């Protein structure tokens, strides 16, 4: 690879304008040619799309390998290749069709609905997209939580724990406080944000005061939060009455995030969470680009020594960054409790925190990029559910696909090499800051 695709040290990075604009020589070149040239040059969009394509190929290979019948057909591949190839094609295309039908739109239900036949209905038409947006909302929060800390030069591995603490805060206020409609939801969201902020403040403060490495402390705090949740939900007054297993009371209706497509049908779970997520994305974008704190955050992320020399308090910034990131992750946990789960259980937030790391990375640690990545991951999750139930492909395949996408996105040089793209400048492709511990 050429050296200019290299992010050599901390440095430039930051808010380099996205590389969509091709920088060809000025001249009477037709627009279409210029566009194509720009497209085939390794820029952010092209790399991301190609990374998705490559990940789908890897996923297809795994689908084929994991099917015993198709494996047997490859045993006599050279005698009759058509068997194995058509079976493989069938299996893979069926799986990916279901991935699409489960996440965006299912043409079959649309046709049935338009013809007014049974099996149709507008709730079924909107079900896939509703599921996608339902899954996307918490992922957007946790992705932002990772991305914001990342921009401040911190590896926030503790998103999971912060989301758990957020879920606890939102859940407790959701069923313990008797508050009127409207106020209750706001208070519950704030409590969730506070729970996460507390769990982000601790590692930030420890890092600032004692230099304790945030990777260690956040990993440990994830476990502490998990065990705390496990203890909390079996206490009297919190455990659901009449139950002996580990599950809390459900939050009151007044604290639940209102469902946006309720009139169409009760199965549409999409709720206000996604709207709050968009607002949070906007707020983080504003914070990063327009506020003093955002400037200091980015400065500390790029070069703490220079920032200190310039009079920025690295300790204060570090603590604040982690606190704000924690609050965002806490909102992610709240969105789950108040939007879909309602009761606290041991696995209430699932792996939303760890998935948030990938979302933050796929979004290149930029707020709107993170939102797009969250939508994409939400779609994979929603589609993966259908792929699992209809095509019998277990949901873990989605994890593999997600990981492979992020690997390729993080390795633009590799994608360029596979597709023989022209090299771009380093700034175009930087994921974030290449730096050590």
């Amino acid at each position, binding site marked *: 690879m050429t050296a200019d695709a290299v992010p050599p040290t901390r440095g430039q990075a930051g808010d380099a304008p996205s590389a969509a604009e091709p920088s060809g020589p000025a001249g009477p070149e037709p627009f279409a040619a210029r566009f194509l040239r720009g497209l085939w040059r390794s820029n952010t969009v092209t790399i991301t799309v190609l990374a998705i394509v490559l990940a789908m190929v890897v996923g297809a290979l795994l689908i084929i390998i994991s099917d015993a019948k198709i494996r047997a057909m490859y045993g006599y591949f050279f005698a009759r290749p058509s068997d194995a190839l058509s079976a493989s094609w069938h299996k893979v295309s069926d799986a990916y069709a279901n991935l699409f039908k489960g996440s965006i739109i299912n043409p079959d239900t649309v046709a049935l609905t338009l013809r007014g036949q049974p099996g149709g209905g507008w709730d079924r038409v909107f079900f896939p997209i509703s599921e996608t947006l339902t899954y996307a909302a918490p992922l957007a929060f946790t992705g932002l939580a990772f991305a914001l800390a990342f921009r401040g030069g911190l590896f926030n591995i503790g998103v999971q724990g912060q989301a758990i603490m957020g879920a606890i805060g939102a859940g407790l206020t959701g069923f313990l406080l008797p508050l009127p409609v409207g106020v209750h939801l706001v208070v519950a969201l704030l409590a969730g944000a506070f729970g996460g902020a507390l769990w982000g403040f601790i590692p930030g403060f*420890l890092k600032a005061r004692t230099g304790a490495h945030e*990777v260690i402390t956040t990993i440990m705090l994830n476990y502490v939060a998990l065990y705390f949740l496990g203890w909390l939900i079996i206490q009297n007054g919190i455990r659901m009455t009449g139950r002996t297993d580990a599950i809390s009371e459900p939050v009151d209706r007044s604290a639940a995030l209102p469902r946006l497509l309720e009139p169409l049908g009760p199965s549409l779970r999409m709720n206000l969470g996604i709207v709050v997520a968009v607002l949070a994305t906007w707020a983080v974008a504003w914070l990063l680009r327009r506020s003093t704190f955002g400037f200091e955050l980015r400065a500390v992320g790029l070069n703490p020594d220079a920032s200190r020399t310039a009079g920025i308090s690295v300790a204060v910034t570090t603590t604040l960054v982690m606190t704000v990131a924690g609050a965002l992750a806490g909102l992610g946990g709240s969105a789950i409790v108040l939007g879909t789960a309602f009761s606290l259980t041991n696995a209430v937030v699932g792996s939303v925190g760890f998935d948030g790391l990938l979302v933050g990375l796929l979004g290149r640690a930029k707020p709107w990029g993170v939102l797009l990545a969250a939508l994409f991951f939400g779609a994979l999750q929603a589609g993966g559910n259908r792929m699992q139930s209809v095509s019998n*492909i277990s949901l873990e395949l989605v994890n593999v696909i997600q990981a492979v996408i992020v690997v390729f996105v993080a390795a633009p040089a590799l994608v360029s090499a596979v597709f023989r793209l022209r090299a771009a400048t380093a700034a175009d492709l930087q994921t974030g800051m290449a730096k050590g511990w």
Partner: protein
Amino acid sequence: MTSTTVDDPTVAEPVRFWTRQRRVGLGFAIAGVLAASIFGPLATERQARITLAETVAGTSVGITGTVGAVLFGLIAAAAGVAIFVGVPRRWFAVLVGLGIVAVVLAFLCWQISQAPEGRNIMPLGDVARTTLLLALPLILGSLAGVLCERSGVINVAIEGQFLMGAFGAALGATVAGTVWVGLIAAAIGGLVIAAMLAVLAIRYLVDQVVLGIVLNVFALGLTGFLYKQIMAHDQTAYNQPSRVPTWDIPVLSDIPLLGPVLFRANVFTYGALALVVIVHFGLTRTRWGLRTRAVGEHPTAADTVGVKVLALRYRNVLLAGLVAGFGGAYFTLWSTTNFNLGMTNGAGFIALAAMIFGRWTPIGALLASLFFGFSSALAFFLGAIASPIPSQFLNMLPYVATIIAVAGLVGRVRAPAADGRPYVKGQ
């Protein structure tokens, strides 16, 4: 720079009162007093006994709970005061150690003395065995981290290497019918992730922390997918490995306390301890070690004197993959005998923390792993003697202890200078 500033006494750095030593001393003094005044009243008049044996039947020493809790609390406080007042440097570590042990003993006096009569005894041999067993995967994982990072490649993917190792071991050992093939398959499993890490980090210059996180998700997804699609359908054919045998070294295994722990053990114990010695010796005494450290600290300088930087990094990352894969086999060939979804449960991340805690040295990694293992073993033991502390809080113990240790005692650690920096000739 002018010469006047060099020896000018007026610009000497002012002597700060709150030095690290004073703060640590004050911390211990407070902790000791708190321990004496909280654990003392909580403890009962029953004896708190400790035995070196592995069962409660052995001969034991004991002390009345209340007396012990107050006494050890005061000892910790005294150590704190001594540190605060100021002791020679070489005594600092000894007193810190004394303070920690005393606080732990005060706590144990309370816990053990409140256990029902007949169970108010701590079998140290059993705790030591559990400590080492729980520490084994962490030792191997953090060694893998050391191997990688001392040559300048960050290894966050230990968890992924564990998972692939565990999966490979279960599959290999079941299909071949012998655990030794399982061990080889485990090493290969770790190697696969390590190879991806090496190529992407060294050849394609991907941010290494990012890469590690992603490879963990990849390994989790891959093993989970293959487990559900293939393994789970026919457990007897793919997922029923046997356990590795225990080798008893005669004479040595009869040493009290440490004998049964160290010398009546399995391939993982012997392997992990041998690897600690080998890696320590290798890093500090051999040409390979010198070159590894040079490449990790200043690759350009190493390159200038003819060390092949990238080749050495490849080799070390792959070696680390073998070690971590071997560590992963522990989960399926010793602690349980089948693979399960995400069964390593974050042990790789703990190993990563142990490596940082141990300051990127093999001995440090060993001690940090043992520290973590001991906290976990203590939590087990306290659960078994019906401690009034809820089990969830006992389970937090190792994690909280690590945070306190890292924040209070270790503080800022220094990674190898070139850790995580890709090396490109001519830059």
